[in-house]
């Protein structure tokens, strides 16, 4: 049961990380020049999709060991979802820009939830 909750949770987190910045919590509008936040959100599409895929594999996987291996990859991806908009690519500098105000705080929260789900899978005793 716990495995189902964390797997489905990871799928949702991954989907929201992918699609959220494109449709729900939009970053700064693009003008003629593409800003850093635009590229960060593009990178999050891929990272989020892979997190969702890992969640799916954990859901259908019958072996605890393979779920745990997947959770290590999931953890790394969730951490990179935080690092992409902060360190690796970055976002806008001004604190009142949409990406700083809404998009990245939400993606960071989703990533933190993802880390909790993957961490729970890693330490789970469920067989």
């Amino acid at each position, binding site marked *: 049961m716990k495995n189902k909750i964390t797997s489905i949770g990871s799928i949702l987190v991954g989907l929201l990380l992918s699609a959220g910045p494109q449709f729900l919590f939009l970053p*700064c509008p693009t003008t003629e020049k593409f800003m850093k936040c635009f590229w960060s959100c593009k990178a999050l599409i891929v990272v989020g999709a892979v997190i969702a895929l890992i969640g799916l594999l954990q859901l259908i996987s019958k072996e605890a060991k393979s779920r745990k291996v997947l959770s290590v990859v999931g953890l790394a991806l969730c951490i990179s979802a935080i690092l992409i908009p902060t360190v690796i690519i970055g976002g*806008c500098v001004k604190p009142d820009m949409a990406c700083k105000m809404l998009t990245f705080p939400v993606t960071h929260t989703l990533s933190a939830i993802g880390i909790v789900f993957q961490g729970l899978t890693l330490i789970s005793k469920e067989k």
Partner: protein
Amino acid sequence: MKQFVTLNMALKNLQRRPVRSWCMIFFVFMLAASLFFCTVLTDSLSESLEKTTNRMGADVIVVPEEYEKDMADALFQGNISSFTFDKQWLGEITGVEGIAKSSPQLYLRTLAADCCSTAVQLIAFDPETDFIITSWLNDDGIELPKKGEVIVGSKITPETDGNVIFFNKPYKVVGQLEETRSNYDACVFMTYETADEIVHSDKWIEAFGEAGAAENLVSCLMIRAEQGIDKNDIATKINYRLSKDCPVRAYTMNGLLSGAMNTVNSMDNYSSILMILISILVIAALVCIFTITINERTKEFGILASLGAGSGKLAGLVLSEGCMIGLAGGLIGVIFSIVGLLIFGNTIVVLMDIPKLITALDYLLILGLKCMALALVVSIVASLYSAWKVSRNSLDTLIKGEEM
């Protein structure tokens, strides 16, 4: 192992009743999280205000009348401002008794090229009369900047070649001030000569129009009072001497920041009242849950008593459960708050229009420990009544499972 048996039993009791335990943990979590947030908010405002006034080192400040609020916002909030008045008005101030030192400053702003390079506050000072910025430079062991050179605050990152570019022209960074956690960390300091170069650059004229010689422009005049002289007296004397058509007024530093001070004080009061109310509510809720559940568990205590557990050990069991709930709720509350603060700090700052939130890890950890201690105390206080009832009740009543 022997000494942990009470804790072990308390933990098992909580684990086997997850709904009840999580409900109680939730109440403590709310208390710890709200205490943490309120404290960070009020501490941040107080610290910004204190840092601004301490670092400023001026007692009285003369600014254009209609820009009084802009000046206060620039000092307290770090809002970037650019206003000037003609230096000629300073002539009316000279000779006022009680002034130890006075020095003009010029506040200029740069342009934000786009969202990725934010506008910066430029502050020009007169090295001959200055008693504020030169003292910071002395403290940090930095030489006075020459023409075309600037000193930057700790948050400004120079280009790789050690320059900063304003209005398409590079300026050499000759020093960086140490972090003060005040708004000055995001400012650039220069002498009037350099400022003159900036206001006469083509880009500046294109953006803000023609300006006169920088040496004739002043944004504010910083004044330090002589030892033992009342600052209010000096401000009153200056304002009395200034002619009616004069566009500037003198304000004491406290007067200028009084709006912010009032906000901080009332926020402090509100948060204290809120905290007391929340603590009372949480204690009441926990007392109710503890009392109800302990009443339902009388038989359990009766069984333990019939097997030789003394009243002190039974009370210890109840108190241990209270402690664990307090620790768990406090820990979860503090972790959530720290993570939330780090993630949403910027959003809170912008939405609430406050200068900054303190996010230094040492401060957050110490505050977290304090919040956990309060959560623990509240839980122990809430479980004391039940513990007392369990230890005071006759074994007969406990064994029969009657309501205590």
